[in-house]
C-alpha cells in the first residue's frame, strides 16, 4: 500500500548563451497523488515537461522547489532511505532499443535489481525469480530468453524485458514514460494490456506518461493535462476527454483522429 505524492514540484534549467544566462522553467508547480491500484495519465505534447516530471520522481534530477513524499514521508537523498525509495518506485523507459545494455544478457538485466534489493538470496533463487519474471511478462521459453542479448529481441520483446526489470524489485509505484510510443502499432495494445494486468495483480500505482489521449482514457482513472510545464487540467479520465475545459485540452482532443466527426464533415 504505497502512495506517492508530489507537491508544488518545479524544475528550472539554467541555459547559457555565451556569457548571458537565462532560466528555463521545464516544470512549474506540479502536484498530484498516485495511490495504489490507480492509474494516472500525464498527457501533453513534446517538450511540455512530462519526462522531466518522471526524472524528478525517479530522483534522477533534483527539483528546484517542491517536495516528493512517499507514504507521507520525504524522500531521502542517499543511503538506506534512497534504497527503499528505489525499491518502491520503478520506471519503464520510452525506447526499448536504448534502455537495455547491448553488452549484457537479459538475465543480467533482471538479476541485478533482484540481487540489489535482496542481497541474501542465493544464485538458484535469483535464477528462479528471473525465469518467473519472464513468464509473468509472457516471454517464453523463459530459460531461452534469459540467455539472449537485447539485439536478438524485437522491440515488443525488449519492452517486455524492460517491464520485467521494473517489476523485479517488487515496486509499489510504476512510472511508465511513453511505454509504447516506440513500438509498432500492432503490438501496442498487447503491451498495454500486459501492463494493466500486472497492475491489477500487484495493486500498483501507475503514472502513465503519454501523448495519446485514446489510450490515456482507456487505461487510466485520472488524467492530468500538461502544457508548457504546468498542469492545465485534471480530472476523471472521461470528464477530461469528453468535456474539456481548457483550450489546450480541446485542441489535443480535436487532433485525435475521429472517424465519426470526419464522416459528418464529408456528408455536409
Amino acid at each position, binding site marked *: 500500500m504505497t502512495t506517492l505524492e508530489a507537491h508544488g514540484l518545479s524544475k528550472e534549467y539554467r541555459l547559457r548563451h555565451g556569457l548571458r544566462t537565462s532560466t528555463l522553467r521545464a516544470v512549474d508547480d506540479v502536484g498530484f497523488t498516485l495511490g495504489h491500484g490507480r492509474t494516472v495519465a500525464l498527457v501533453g505534447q513534446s517538450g511540455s515537461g512530462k519526462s522531466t516530471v518522471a526524472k524528478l520522481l*525517479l530522483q*534522477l534530477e533534483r527539483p528546484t522547489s517542491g517536495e516528493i513524499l512517499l507514504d507521507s514521508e520525504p524522500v531521502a537523498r542517499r543511503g538506506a532511505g*534512497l*534504497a527503499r525509495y*528505489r*525499491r518502491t518506485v*520503478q*520506471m519503464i*523507459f*520510452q*525506447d526499448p532499443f*536504448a*534502455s*537495455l*545494455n*547491448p*553488452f*549484457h544478457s537479459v538475465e543480467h538485466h533482471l538479476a*541485478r*535489481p533482484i540481487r*540489489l*534489493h535482496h542481497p541474501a538470496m542465493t544464485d538458484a533463487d535469483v535464477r528462479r525469480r528471473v525465469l518467473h519474471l519472464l513468464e509473468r511478462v*509472457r*516471454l*517464453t*521459453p523463459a530459460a*531461452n*530468453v534469459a*540467455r*539472449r*542479448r537485447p*539485439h*536478438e*529481441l524485437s522491440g*515488443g*520483446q525488449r519492452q*517486455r524485458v*524492460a517491464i520485467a*526489470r521494473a517489476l*523485479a*524489485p517488487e515496486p509499489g509505484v510504476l512510472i511508465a514514460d511513453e511505454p509504447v510510443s516506440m513500438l509498432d502499432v500492432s503490438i501496442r*495494445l*498487447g503491451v498495454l*494490456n*500486459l501492463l494493466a*494486468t500486472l497492475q491489477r495483480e500487484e495493486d500498483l500505482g501507475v503514472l502513465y506518461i503519454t501523448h495519446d489521449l485514446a489510450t490515456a482514457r482507456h487505461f487510466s482513472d485520472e488524467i492530468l493535462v500538461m502544457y508548457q510545464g504546468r498542469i492545465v487540467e485534471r480530472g476523471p479520465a472521461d470528464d477530461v476527454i469528453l468535456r474539456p475545459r481548457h483550450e489546450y485540452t480541446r485542441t489535443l482532443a480535436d487532433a485525435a483522429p475521429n472517424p465519426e466527426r470526419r464522416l459528418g464533415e464529408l456528408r455536409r
Partner: protein
Amino acid sequence: MTADTVALTAPVTRRRPTWPPLTAKLAAGLILGGAVVLFGLLGPLLVQDPSRVGDIGLAGPSGDHLLGTTQTGQDVLAQLAYATRGSLIVGAIVGVLTLLLSAFFGIVGAYAGGWLDELFSLFTNIVLVIPGLPVVIVISAYVPDKSLLLVSLVLAITGWAGSARVLRGSTLSLRGRDYVLACRVAGEKRWRILAVEILPNLIPLLASQVVFAVIFAILGEAGLSYLGLGASGSFTWGTMLYYAQNGLALRLGAWWWFVPPGLLLALFGAALSLINFSIDEIINPKLRSQTRASRRGWRMSSEQLRKAKESTL
C-alpha cells in the same frame, strides 16, 4: 485480454558482440604481428651476443652470419632480435600507460561530471597542445643516461591526451543512455555502473586507442633513436638504424644492415594498423559495408544487365 504469450524459438547465438569477426584483414594483422612478437620474445634466446665485436668487418649474409655483420663485425641478426625485443618493450609500456592515463582522465572525468570533469578536461587539453617531439627532445637532452623505461615514460606522457579526448566523448554519450539511467533507478552503485555497464561498451574503443598508442610509441621511439636521442646502451629498431646511418651503410650498399630493422618496423606498424581497422569496424559497422570489395557485390551481374537491357528495349 490479449496479453498474449511471445514465444521465441530461434536458437541462441553465443558470440560475444565485442569480438571482431575473423576477416582476412584481421588474420593478416594477427599473423604478421604475432610473428614479429614471437621473434622478439624467442629471438634473443637463440642468437649470439649482439655486442660481440668480430674481426671480419662489414660482410654480407653468409652461413655464419645469416644477415651479415656491421662495420665492427657484430652479427646483424642478433642485433635485430634484441632490437625487436627493445622496441616491443617500449610499445608495451606506452600501451599500458596510455590505457591507464587516458581511461582515468577520459572516462572517470566524463562519468563523474561537474568540476572534476572540467578539471580533467582542462588538464587533458593542456597536455594535448604540448608539442610532443620538442618536449621529448628537451627532456632527452637534460637526462644524460636514459633507460628504455624513461624514454617510454616520456612518450606515454606526451601521447595519452588524444585517446583521453576520444574516450571522454564516448563516455559522455554513454552515461546519458537509458540503460545507465535504468541502472541508477534500480539502485546500482555509481562505480558499478561505470565498471559493469559503461566500460564493456568502451572496450572496442579502448582497444583501438591502445593499438594506436603502441604504433605511435614504436615509431616515436625509432624517430628519437634515429636522431640519437633514444635510450643509451640498449637495442631498438631505431638505434639500429641510427648506427647504420652513422656507419654509412647506405653509401656502402650494406642493405643487410638497414633493411631488416626498417622492414620489421614497417611490417609491425602495418600489422597493428590492420588489427586497428578490424576493431574500428566493430565500432562503426558502416566501414564494413563501404569497402570497395563489398560495393562490387551491389552491382548487377552481366546476366542481370543483359536481361535488364532486353526488357527495356
